[in-house]
């Protein structure tokens, strides 16, 4: 028991050797995870990597074939109710009742968490406000947009003020401004000391939110580290500039080459070059300004998942394009 105590005090989530098989598919193949209290773990992986399976096991929705996990100090297999009391789950697909209103959904969850009628109503009101759903509160969620439904789903998982929260691809399918909103919510949660496990297919998102990143591939953790460590492995950012007028492209290319000291790649009306730090961005902006060149795109980008996977696995097809569900 002594080792469990250590785990309890140090880690909000601790999993060892999680294995899960669905028929022929080995969805998880010995996954280890550790998330210290109050931190964010980003689980990064392509379709079918096993992210959702891991989340469902840690949320007691599925039982692993092998391995063990504790969440908030409780064993997921032996004390599922204690785990459920400590967690909030925002799954990949919104877990809300389509025929109830937004408010009714939140009150229902509050009542099932043993809040009194009045307390459940108060908590629902608070969350509706916090997630900008006050106006839609008394409409059936069937009429909600995808983004609203996701926000309601997240609100529902926060009713009990859980100490650990799982967010399974919280921004997939959201437009960029809604994605920023979701990021703000996650940051707010961590400020309050909540431990977050977040799955995503975007390195950029994991980089923006996570204290540590675990990269999943075919049911295994193939890399783990801080965002900086990971970026050091997979290569830094790429600076991309697209001039408003294509005739300026040669000038832009020359400018980038001089500032960065590397030959940019020119493709379809834009020039891009790998950069070590964001100081290059300022120099490029100043240079463009001095030459009076208008740009339609100026971006500092992280490699996308395909590139990350190519670097980590040497395989070209990170996306198996599996149809889940």
């Amino acid at each position, binding site marked *: 028991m002594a080792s469990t105590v250590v785990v309890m005090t140090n880690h909000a989530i601790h999993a060892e050797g999680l294995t899960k098989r669905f028929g022929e598919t080995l969805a998880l193949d010995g996954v280890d995870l550790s998330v210290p209290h109050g931190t964010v773990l980003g689980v990064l992986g392509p379709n079918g990597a096993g992210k959702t399976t891991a989340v469902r096991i840690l949320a007691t929705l599925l039982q692993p074939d092998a391995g063990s996990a504790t969440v908030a100090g409780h064993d997921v297999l032996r004390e599922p109710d204690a785990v459920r009391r400590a967690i909030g789950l925002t799954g990949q697909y919104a877990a809300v009742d389509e025929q109830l209103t937004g408010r009714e959904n939140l009150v*229902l969850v509050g009542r099932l968490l*043993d809040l009194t009628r009045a307390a459940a109503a108060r908590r629902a009101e608070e969350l509706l406000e916090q997630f900008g759903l006050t106006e839609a509160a008394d409409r059936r969620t069937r009429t909600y947009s995808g983004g609203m439904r996701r926000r309601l789903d997240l609100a529902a998982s926060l009713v009990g003020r859980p100490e650990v929260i799982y967010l399974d691809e919280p921004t997939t399918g959201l437009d960029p401004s809604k994605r920023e909103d979701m990021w703000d919510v996650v940051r707010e949660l961590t400020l309050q000391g909540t431990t977050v496990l977040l799955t995503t297919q975007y390195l950029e998102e994991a980089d923006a939110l996570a204290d540590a990143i675990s990269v999943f591939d075919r049911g295994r953790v193939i890399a783990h580290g801080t965002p900086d460590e990971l970026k050091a492995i997979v290569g830094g950012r790429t600076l991309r500039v697209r001039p408003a007028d294509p005739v300026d492209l040669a000038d832009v290319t020359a400018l980038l080459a001089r500032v960065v000291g590397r030959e940019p790649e020119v493709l379809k009306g834009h020039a891009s070059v790998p950069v070590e730090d964001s100081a290059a961005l300022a120099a490029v902006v100043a240079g463009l300004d001095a030459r009076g060149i208008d740009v339609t795109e100026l971006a500092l980008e992280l490699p996308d998942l395909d590139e990350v996977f190519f670097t980590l696995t040497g395989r070209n097809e990170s996306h198996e394009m599996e149809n889940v569900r």
Partner: protein
Amino acid sequence: MSNTLAPRPVPGTVDADRVTWWPWLRHALVLSGRSVTKMMRHPEQFFDVTLQPALFLVIFVYVLGGAISGNTHDYLQFVLPGIMIQTVLFSTVSIGVNLSTDIKEGVFDRFRSLPIPRSAPLVGATIAECLRYGITIVVSLAMGVLMGFRTSTSPVSVLLGMLMVLAFAWCLCWVSIWLGMIVREAGSVQGLGFLALFPLTFGSSMFASADTMPGWLQTWVKINPVTHLTDAVRGLLTGGPVAEDATIAALTSAVILAVFAPLAVRAYRRKA
């Protein structure tokens, strides 16, 4: 409980905000509230329980009643308890279909991640069913009264008769739930349920007294629990012996419950 694990103190949440009595039953009751709300949002499902007894009463009383009993009023007095029971029994079929589609809804992932018993939504749904059966029973009786049906016993006795029908239907609804959980296609539960209910209802003393039937059929009618239920309820509504039939009906429904409720809960927990 160790201190490091205690949930963070939360402003606005005090112990007085938490209810602790009988969590198991309370969770089921809260979830029955969800089922009732959904029921009320689909009032069309009350059309059939309203129209069906009305239609059957018209057909049986006005079309056949004269031929069977010599005059329509006598037949109405005879057949009303039967039509009430038939309507309620047929309405037990839908819970199996509804639950098996309900557990595929996204919200069940929410229920699974909450600290409530896995069967709470199931128990909640059966509690809500009681309301539906109650409405069905009252509507059937009211239709009869509108057409001239009169009880000839005490109000307590009438109420007992209605409760008996409700209890029998509630026990039977576990068969429907079990079917809904083990049958692959939810739609086929409807077909199966109706198929089983035809011999149970028409092959009983609901529409005609058993004495008029051929021997082989009498044998079935006499062992059919629905016959005993019908005769007991008839006694409770319009007078006559009750005790023996009521006992047999109560025992049968208890057996149905004892067999099918565990089966249904087990199948449900495996699926939900």
